[in-house]
C-alpha cells in the first residue's frame, strides 16, 4: 500500500510540468462544458420556473439525461465528431445540462407563492419579481445544480484522455509511458480534484444563500440526520415532500429523482 503511495508521489514530483499541463487541460475542458451548460440551462430553467409551466419538459429532460451513460454518448458521437475535444465537450455538456436545468426550474418554481404575491402587491413589475424576489431565493438551489454538474464533469472529463481530448485521463490512458505510478498518481489527483470542486461549490452555495436562510438549512439537515453541510441526495425529497404530497405526488417524485445527484464517470 505504501509502495504505490510513494510511487505516485514520486511520479508527481518528477513530472510536475506534465501533471500541471494535464491538470490545466482537464480544468479548461471541464469549465468550458459547465459554462456552456449554465448558459443553456439556467436561463431556460429560470424562465420556465418563473412562468410555472412546462414542468413536464423541465423534469423529463432531466430524467432522460440521467439515464444517458456518458461513455455511450461519447461512443455514439464519435463517428460524427471524430476523435478529440469536440466529442468530449458535447458529451460533457449533455451530462451537465440536465441537473442545471431541473434545479433552476425547481428553484424558481418552488419560491413561496405568498412571497411572490406580496412582492406583486408592493407594486413590483414581473421583471422585478424575478430579479429581486425569485432569483435571490432560488440561487442556492441553482448553485446546487451547478455543483452536481461540475462534480460529474470533472470526474467524467477523465474519459477525454481515452477519446483523444487530453487532461488527466491522458496519464491514466498511457500505461506504457507513465506506468502504474502515473496511473495511481493521476487517480489520486482526480479524487482530490473532485473533492475540491465539491467543497468550492458548497462554499459558493453558502455565499449566495441569503443570510436569513443559512441557519435554517443547517438545522433542517441536522433534523433529517444528514451530515451538516455535506449534500445528501435526500436533501430535495424532504423539502418537497411537505408541499407536494398528495396533490401532485407523481410529478414531484419524478422531480426529486431528477434533481438527485449521481456520480460522474
Amino acid at each position, binding site marked *: 500500500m505504501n509502495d504505490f503511495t510513494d510511487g505516485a508521489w514520486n511520479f508527481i514530483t518528477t513530472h510536475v510540468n506534465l501533471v500541471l499541463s494535464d491538470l490545466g487541460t482537464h480544468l479548461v475542458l471541464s469549465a468550458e462544458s459547465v459554462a456552456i451548460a449554465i448558459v443553456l440551462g439556467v436561463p431556460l430553467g429560470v424562465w420556465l420556473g418563473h412562468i410555472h409551466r412546462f414542468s413536464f419538459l423541465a423534469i423529463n429532460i432531466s*430524467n432522460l439525461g*440521467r*439515464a*444517458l*451513460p*456518458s*461513455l*455511450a*454518448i*461519447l*461512443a*455514439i*458521437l*464519435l*463517428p*460524427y*465528431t*471524430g*476523435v478529440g475535444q*469536440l466529442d468530449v465537450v*458535447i458529451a460533457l455538456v*449533455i451530462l451537465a445540462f440536465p441537473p442545471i436545468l431541473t434545479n433552476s426550474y425547481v428553484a424558481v418554481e418552488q419560491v413561496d407563492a405568498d412571497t411572490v404575491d406580496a412582492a406583486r402587491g408592493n407594486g413590483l413589475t414581473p421583471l422585478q419579481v424575478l430579479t429581486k424576489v425569485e432569483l435571490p431565493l432560488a440561487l442556492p438551489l441553482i448553485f446546487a445544480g451547478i455543483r452536481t454538474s461540475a*462534480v460529474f464533469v470533472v*470526474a*467524467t472529463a*477523465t*474519459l477525454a484522455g*481515452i477519446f483523444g481530448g487530453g487532461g488527466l*485521463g491522458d496519464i*491514466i490512458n498511457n500505461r506504457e509511458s507513465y506506468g*502504474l505510478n502515473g*496511473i*495511481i498518481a*493521476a*487517480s489520486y489527483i*482526480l*479524487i482530490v480534484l*473532485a473533492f475540491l470542486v465539491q467543497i468550492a461549490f458548497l462554499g459558493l452555495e453558502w455565499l449566495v444563500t441569503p443570510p436569513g436562510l443559512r441557519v435554517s438549512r443547517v438545522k433542517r439537515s441536522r433534523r433529517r*440526520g*444528514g*451530515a451538516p453541510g*455535506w449534500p*445528501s*441526495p*435526500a436533501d430535495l*425529497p*424532504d423539502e418537497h*415532500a411537505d408541499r407536494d404530497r398528495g396533490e*401532485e*405526488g*407523481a410529478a414531484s*417524485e419524478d422531480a*426529486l*429523482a431528477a434533481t*438527485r*445527484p*449521481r*456520480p*460522474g*464517470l
Partner: protein
Amino acid sequence: MTGLFLAGGGGGGPVIPNFGGGTSKCVIDNGRFCWDWFTQNWSGTFEPALIQHIELTVIAVGIGFAISFLLAIAAHRARWLAPPVTFLGSLLYTIPSLAFFEIMVSITGINWFTVEIALVSYTLLILFTNTLAGLSGVSSEVLDAAHGMGMKPAQVLWKVELPLALPTIIAGLRVAVVTVVSLATVAAYIVPAGLGKPIFDAIGSGLFNTKFIAAGVLCVALALVGDGLFAGLQRVLTPWAAARRGAA
C-alpha cells in the same frame, strides 16, 4: 439535440479493415452504421457484452441494496447511525469512477470483484438515503394507528412502514440501476466485459463507427429499459399511489 448529431462531418481516423465477419462496402468504407456487420456480429460480440453488462448491474444493485437496506433499517432505529453512513456514502460517491477502478485494481487485482466493489459503493448513498427517507416519511398518525391496533415493532416495520416507503425505495433503485449501467461501461477499461468492451476495443483498433454506435445505443437502451422496469414495478407494487394519482 439532433442538430448536434448532424454537425461535425465525416468520422476520421485510420481504419484497419479486419473487423471480423463480412467485408461489405459499408464496412470497408467505415460507414456510419453497417447493419450487415452488426447482425453478423450480434451473437459473437454484442449479445455476450449485453448479458455481461446486465450481470454486472444486477449483482452490483443487488448487493448494494442488501447492504443499504439493512443499514437503513438499523439507522431508522438508531438515528445516530445516519450521519456517519451518509457521510461515508457521499465520500465514496464523489470519487471519479476511473480513478476508483484503477486504485482498487492495485489492491484487489484485475477481476470482477474489483469492479463490483466500486459499483456497489456507488449505489450505497442513493439506496441508503432513499430507504431511510421513505421509512422516516411515514406519518406519525399512521404509526399511532398501527401501535393502537396492537402491532409489534417488527409488524409495524414490515406491514406499515416498508409498504409506505416502497415508492421512495424504488425511486432510489431506479437511480441506482441507471448509475450502475452507466459506470459499468467504464469498468470495461479494467475488466474486458460488458458493453464498454466493444467501445474500448474500437478505440484501440481502427475506430470502427458501427461498433461505437451499436455499443453506445445498446447501453443507452439498457439504461432506459432498466429505469422503465422499475418505474413499472413501482406502479404494480403501489396500486394506491396510482389511485391517488387518478383522483388528483
